[in-house]
């Protein structure tokens, strides 16, 4: 194998599993260390800079970082990264001094943002400090998009939402609320230099089954119903409620229905429990509130009588795992079941829907009705128009919207300045800084903490179910947050090896608790992986290979389960090993100088 190029920004970035997995590449270990130091304001700002909505995401993020966390591989449960983000948001001080300054004098370029959801808001935040005149158009009376309309208040209190949405609006966005765009063509005629479409995936899927038409007054589309609850148009639901669907929207619907007075609520899912789209913790929360989740029941027919819904007939199936590992469903042989219902909430997915974009204005769409975009720039085939968030690539979650927004903001900036969108893009980079402070002192808390994941305390169930506005999760307090923060393995403090200093004394091999280091003859990767001190079976994780050493051997470190305890560097007599903090430059408008 060839020696590893540690100056490739991606090499060490991949070692920081959480940051690599995060679409916005939030520097997770760094903000967790700040939390340990009770520097909540700084921890919050580091998040704000990267993902724009720390308070909101600290409650609602889909947390792609957590399954990636190295703790999953070294023991079992990841660090509660998401809820630590909330700790930073809950305990922060005044952040005023840290906010970017918005110039009073504008740069003369006008940008229109369509939709006031997370993607547009994040683009606004990135563009405003650079003097852009930013106009935001939204059909609803206030900003936030799906964060306001689809996430119930018992998961995301309105004050938390408004604090972070308003912070951006107050930076000087010209808002046009209650202004529904019905034609992109007429929008284009207005005097804007660039357009950003962040209108989300606003159409909930429907089912065409016998009886659907006749029962229509008792069937609601999940996201529309949640939205009408959020805006106060709906404040109760009566009788027996069936929620159809297995995603997070279904979980929000059933828990909301339970709080709005439903006599009974059940979730019925066509597929198996393990493959439901809803996050584990959302399923757990719904079930712990006494809501049954019934699986392997595809609906067959809505039963109605005199225009009134009576219930639904479901087929019974069982999952069968095919040779390709995928589940398919075959009839289980049980008779169809009838479940009585007075109201159905349909939460079986959502999709992009832009009937207001004319198809003859230079924006091309693919067969799924998604706009065709340049992947690196998010520019559509009409060079003035950019997309982001769910409107760009279909339904994802908020953190993707932030990531898209940073990308699109750079593109819009370069476009408005007449520069090449690809060639002039700021590059990624990495900086490595030694953390050695003395003979045996490191600037980070290197000691491995064997503690298990701490649970986030919840409010008492009776209290929670009575009022839709009572937030279910209480969040970690400072003490519990500090304990959980200590579980972080500091994966951004890298083990950096300098081959010319090594005397091959084996001290690092002997001390490494995870058997990650081997000195061996250089071989092909496949063979090498089998011959290490501990076989490196996880091919997703890199092998760090040094240049040839004095004896002709090479140092091989399997990055897979290294706990970054620093003992290799601690026991190295020549400083051939050093613990160095990797700081990644993730291109973002204004976060560092673009070329």
């Amino acid at each position, binding site marked *: 194998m060839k020696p590893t190029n540690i100056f490739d920004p991606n090499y060490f970035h991949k070692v920081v599993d959480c940051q690599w997995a995060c679409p916005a590449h939030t520097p997770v270990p760094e903000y967790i260390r700040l939390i340990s130091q009770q520097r909540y304001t700084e921890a919050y700002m580091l998040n704000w800079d990267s993902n724009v909505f720390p308070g909101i995401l600290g409650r609602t993020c889909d947390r792609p970082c957590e399954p990636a966390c190295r703790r999953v*591989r*070294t*023991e079992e449960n990841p660090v509660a990264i998401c809820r630590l983000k909330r700790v930073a948001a809950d305990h922060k001080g005044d952040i005023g001094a840290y906010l970017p300054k918005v110039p009073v004098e504008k740069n003369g370029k006008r940008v229109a943002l369509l939709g006031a959801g997370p993607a547009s808001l994040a683009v606004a935040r990135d563009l405003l400090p650079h003097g852009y005149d930013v106009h935001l158009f939204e059909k609803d009376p206030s900003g936030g998009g799906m964060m306001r309309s689809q996430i119930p208040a018992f998961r995301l209190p309105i004050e938390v939402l408004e604090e972070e949405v308003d912070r951006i609006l107050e930076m000087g966005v010209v808002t046009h609320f209650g202004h529904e765009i019905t034609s992109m063509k007429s929008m284009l005629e207005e005097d804007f230099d660039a357009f950003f479409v962040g209108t989300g995936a606003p159409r909930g899927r429907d089912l065409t089954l016998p009886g659907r038409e006749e029962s229509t007054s008792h069937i609601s589309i999940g996201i529309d119903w949640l939205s009408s609850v959020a805006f106060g148009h709906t404040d109760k639901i009566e009788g027996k409620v069936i929620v159809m669907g297995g995603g997070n929207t279904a979980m929000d619907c059933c828990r909301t229905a339970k709080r709005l007075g439903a006599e009974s609520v059940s979730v019925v899912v066509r597929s198996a429990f393990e493959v439901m789209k809803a996050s584990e913790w959302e399923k757990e929360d719904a079930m712990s509130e006494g809501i049954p989740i019934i699986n392997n029941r595809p609906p067959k027919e809505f039963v109605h009588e005199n225009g009134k819904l009576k219930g639904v007939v479901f087929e019974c199936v069982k999952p069968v795992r095919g040779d390709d590992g995928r589940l398919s469903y075959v009839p289980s042989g049980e008779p169809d079941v009838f479940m009585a219902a007075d109201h159905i909430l349909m939460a079986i997915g959502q999709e992009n829907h832009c009937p207001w974009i004319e198809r003859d204005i230079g924006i091309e769409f693919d067969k799924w009705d998604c706009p065709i975009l340049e992947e690196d720039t998010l520019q559509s085939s009409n060079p003035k128009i950019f997309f982001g968030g769910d409107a760009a690539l279909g339904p994802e979650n908020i953190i993707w919207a932030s990531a898209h927004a940073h990308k699109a903001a750079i593109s819009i900036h370069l476009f408005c300045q007449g520069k090449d969108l690809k060639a002039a893009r700021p590059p990624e980079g990495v900086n490595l800084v030694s953390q050695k402070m003395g003979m*045996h002192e490191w600037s980070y808390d*290197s*000691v*491995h903490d*064997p503690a298990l994941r701490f649970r986030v305390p919840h409010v008492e169930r009776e209290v929670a179910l009575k009022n839709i506005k009572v937030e279910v999760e209480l969040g970690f307090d400072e003490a519990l947050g500090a304990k959980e923060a200590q579980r972080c393995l500091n994966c951004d403090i890298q083990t950096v090896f300098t081959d010319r200093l090594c*005397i*091959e*004394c*084996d*001290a690092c*091999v*002997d*001390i490494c*608790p*995870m*058997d*990650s280091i081997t000195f061996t003859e250089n071989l092909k990767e496949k063979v090498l992986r089998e011959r290490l001190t*501990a*076989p490196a*079976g996880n091919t997703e994780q890199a092998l760090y290979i040094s240049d040839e050493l*004095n*004896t002709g051997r090479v140092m091989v470190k399997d990055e897979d*389960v290294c*706990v970054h*305890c*620093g*003992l290799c560097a*601690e*026991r*190295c*007599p*020549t400083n051939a090993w050093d613990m160095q903090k990797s700081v990644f430059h993730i291109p973002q408008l204004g976060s560092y100088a673009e070329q």
Partner: protein
Amino acid sequence: MTFVAKPRVHHPKLPVNEIGLTRRDYEGPVSTLCAGCGHDSVSAAIVQACAELSLPPHKFAKISGIGCSSKTPSYFLSKSHGFNSVHGRMPSVATGANLANRDLYCIGVSGDGDTASIGLGQFAHIVRRRINMLYVVDNNGTYGLTKGQFSATNDKGSTSKKGLPNLNEPIDLVSLALQIGASFVARSFSGDKKQLVPLIKAALIHKGFGFIDVISPCVAFNNHQGSTKSYDYIRDHSEPVVVTDYFAAQEEITVDYAPGTSEEVHMPDGSVLCLQKLDEKFDVHDKVHALNYVQTRQAQGEVVTGLLYVDPDASDCHEVLDTVQRPLNELDVDDLCPGNAALEMVNAGFR
């Protein structure tokens, strides 16, 4: 000195041996020796050997004298018995321990000062007494604890850190052990665990006195240019003569050496040493030949390593003294004072 404890967390696929323990269960606390000390690698090799042999840690007695080397028993097998004794007097204490409880695996760790200077007399006599033990010398050719004076194994002409040459002749412990009757003699290098671990295993299983002279560089005082016990010097001048692989009884033998160069040595417990002779003429069963070989190569500036001599049918001290099979410390009053009738019988034997 490292203050950070080695965390208990370990590789999720760390193997478990026959008695349900992992290698980590054979470790001790983090070493307080200088970072990079060869002695720590020797300790790690002992840990690995004991774990792979699936021997219960509480069945070990670790005995040492004084010096850097003699501190190391603290850093391995923390769940065993240990005695950090007087300078150069490890052999006496080890003899006592082995006489009292023949069931214990006895590991004596000493250094070149402890064995070749103050303890030379003790060393000679424990070899002669054939105590059933593994005697390891962590040999770095210097007095590290007192900041780098030449020790008795330091080669003539080898220089100190400041560049002054050693004017005295060295004591070669391997030659000495061969000469006075050790039944298992090997030399190895702390930086070569592939060689060292099987040797430790074989010496532990060997019945009789197992001696391993391990060249173990002192990073602080004897790892410079001009030293003949530095990592670089040993790597350049080490001449392995026999490659040893250890296979426990019933274990499948997986090595396949070229015909004519290999040999199997069957140990009393059923385990097998597979030897690959790198020099075809070498004979591990011929003491005089081994002594000659080591000396000749040494005169050419080479350091011969590997298994140099083994007598698998050797006897140990208990056999010579014809002691009972039960450990002496388990004999109670009734065993030791069998009463007047028995005494009469013994006395009658003398009449």
